[in-house]
């Protein structure tokens, strides 16, 4: 969800993008509704989008318990879970968003951001509606906090997504913008279709999920970016409507699974910007994930329900980076600040610049065979297709 913060979109801009995405999918334009007169229903009950959900447990009285994320919603008949995209129908739980794409773009992979995974390539990026948290600063709340029938969407089955990725010369499909955890079934099918055709999969996620779902769904991913939104439970409770501990567990599990993982930490003035929090975060990462995990401190822009805070000062981001550097992390970046030198990658040994970035573009990539060209220090990441 933080990805939107790099290029904040107002609703009008977003709808423009949605229209563009319709064109990208090549399956017709999005129907515009006249506000004055009720239009034909844009809803909702279209069977082609509905598949039985994975990761749930049947209870008595037609209720179910969702086992996708730690929230474990108990959902009665005809109701939906917190995410708004999974519905109980007579005791069977369904995903309402399989192949129901509300946003699709060809993005630089640096926009995710993934800096150590196929730099300079583009990712066929898509989303459905829905999210399992409700961050007060969400940049893409138009889609993440909506039910699928409320927003224009296009039918894009996995095979079509793969074709489009290849058509647009994208080596990866990126599941992003909203929260891919809640459309796990679609993501898994897309990943399978993509892999069969030589297209990889990456996911941009909050990591707020149960271990079984994580292993099954993100086990199919080739790289993962996790939004670690804070390093305190209180922030997760009050600002995110979630919990920190399961996200940390996700990061550790991803590490054990051997998935290439990068972490974004969106810095909000006064809420998660203390030295102690930055230090605790960096120490935890080093101890549990290792010093080579890229950590991106990114700039917040006022949006959604949190508009009363200023844009994060660059000096705050630099302070965060200095603390994380001092704690021994090797790859600490500053994001959402175009032109900042901390967008580049420097060799952890000789400190020379080995990847230069301008905006979302990797303008110079000097790494060869996974090593620094100056001192031959191995640089962790996946650098070439």
């Amino acid at each position, binding site marked *: 969800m933080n990805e939107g913060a790099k290029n904040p979109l107002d609703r009008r801009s977003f709808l423009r993008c949605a229209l563009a995405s319709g064109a990208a999918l090549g399956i017709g334009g999005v129907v515009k509704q006249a506000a004055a007169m009720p239009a034909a229903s844009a*809803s909702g009950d279209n069977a082609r989008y509905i598949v039985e959900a994975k990761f749930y447990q049947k209870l008595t009285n037609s209720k179910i318990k969702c086992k996708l994320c730690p929230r474990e919603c108990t959902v009665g008949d005809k109701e939906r879970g917190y995410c708004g995209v999974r519905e109980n129908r007579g005791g069977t739980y369904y995903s309402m968003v399989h192949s129901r794409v509300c946003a699709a773009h060809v993005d630089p992979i640096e926009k995710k951001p993934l800096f150590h995974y196929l730099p300079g390539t583009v990712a066929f990026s898509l989303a459905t509606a829905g999210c399992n948290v409700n961050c007060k600063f969400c940049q893409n709340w138009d889609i993440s906090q909506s039910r699928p029938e409320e927003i224009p969407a296009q039918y894009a089955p996995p095979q079509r997504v793969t074709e489009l990725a290849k058509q647009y010369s994208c080596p990866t499909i990126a599941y992003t913008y909203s929260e891919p955890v809640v459309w796990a079934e679609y993501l898994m099918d897309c990943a399978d279709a993509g892999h069969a055709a030589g297209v990889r999969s990456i996911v941009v996620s909050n990591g707020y999920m149960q271990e079984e779902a994580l292993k099954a769904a993100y086990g199919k991913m080739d790289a993962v970016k996790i939004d670690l939104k804070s390093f305190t439970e209180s922030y997760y409770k009050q600002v995110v*409507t979630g919990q920190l501990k399961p996200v940390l567990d996700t990061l550790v599990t991803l590490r054990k699974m051997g998935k290439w993982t990068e972490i974004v930490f969106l810095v909000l003035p006064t809420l998660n910007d203390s030295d102690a929090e930055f230090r605790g975060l960096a120490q935890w990462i080093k101890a549990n994930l290792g010093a080579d995990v890229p950590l991106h401190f990114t700039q917040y822009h006022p949006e959604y329900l949190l508009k009363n805070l200023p844009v994060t000062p660059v000096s705050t981001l630099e302070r965060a980076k200095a603390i994380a550097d001092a704690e021994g992390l090797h790859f600490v970046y500053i994001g959402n600040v175009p032109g900042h030198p901390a967008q580049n990658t420097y060799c952890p040994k000789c400190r020379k610049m080995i990847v230069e970035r301008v905006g979302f573009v990797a303008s110079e990539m000097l790494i060869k065979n996974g090593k620094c060209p100056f001192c031959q220090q191995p640089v962790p990441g996946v650098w070439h297709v």
Partner: protein
Amino acid sequence: MSAARNGSRRDFLKGTLSGAAFLCAGGALAAQPMAAEVGAAGAKSRVVVARDELLRGSGFTVDAQRMRTLLDRAMLALFNRENSLDAWKKIVHPGERVSLKVNTLGGRGISTNVQLVEALCERLQQAGIKSSDIVIWDRDSAELERAGFSLAIGGDRVQCYGTDRMGYEDELSAYGSVGSRFSKILTQRTDVLINLPVLKDHDGAGVTIALKNMYGVIHNPNKYHPNGCNPYVADLNMLPEIRSRMRLVICDATTAMYEGGPAYKPEFCWPCNSLLLSTDAVALDYTGWQMIERKRAEKGLKSLEAEQRGPSYIITSADDEHRLGHCDSKRISVVEV
């Protein structure tokens, strides 16, 4: 739509003189004409429970004529009037656009009855409301149809469609724990909102009646079910889009459900054959909650509180922060007719 326009001069003075309690209620109350009585110190909220044991005759279908009579009887009792038209003129005025927010999640089994809505439309038109200025609505057109309503869009007739036909406002409205986009039917087609919930159990919230029926006017109700919907329901009902428009609640308790909700579970329903009316949604919800508790006790079930799902949002709605109405039985006058 100001208080002065709808409340009598005596009501207004009584409210003004009642002191700090009224003043503390703030500007939002002023927009809701009937709430001035709720805010007045010492004032009681009236909840009418109108019952007709023969509402269905000998069958399952509600008798339209008996429903019309029952509605009239309830309105007369609520407003202490001799003539039902006089009672309706307390609620609506010619030229206003009136929307009827029904509840159709439960299909034909437990939704707002078509017969009630037809009777209501008839009385509204007699009170001077143009047929095309009346909208019957809920979240979804398909759910309306499944509950027995016929969609009607355009022309000089009573309108009937779901929010899926008009969409939601682009901008968020926020209060406390809630940030939501409202149905354009509410914001663009409604001067007066008449809330027409049903009376039923809810697995998470305890009960769902009038206050929670407002989950059907926003785009993201799924975000507000944790913690028994508390304080989300109360916070949502604080928003001026609702408060400035809702003038009356008519709860259709023809069929009520004491367990297993919100989906229709016939084994947990009883023929309550009643309408509950009030201008105080909190008092009505409190009264309905007690009716459900009594039925649960009669059936040998634990109370909702004992099941850890007492509808605490009703209590929150009446607290010092919200002051949306009364949930203290000493401040509710239940009139059975």
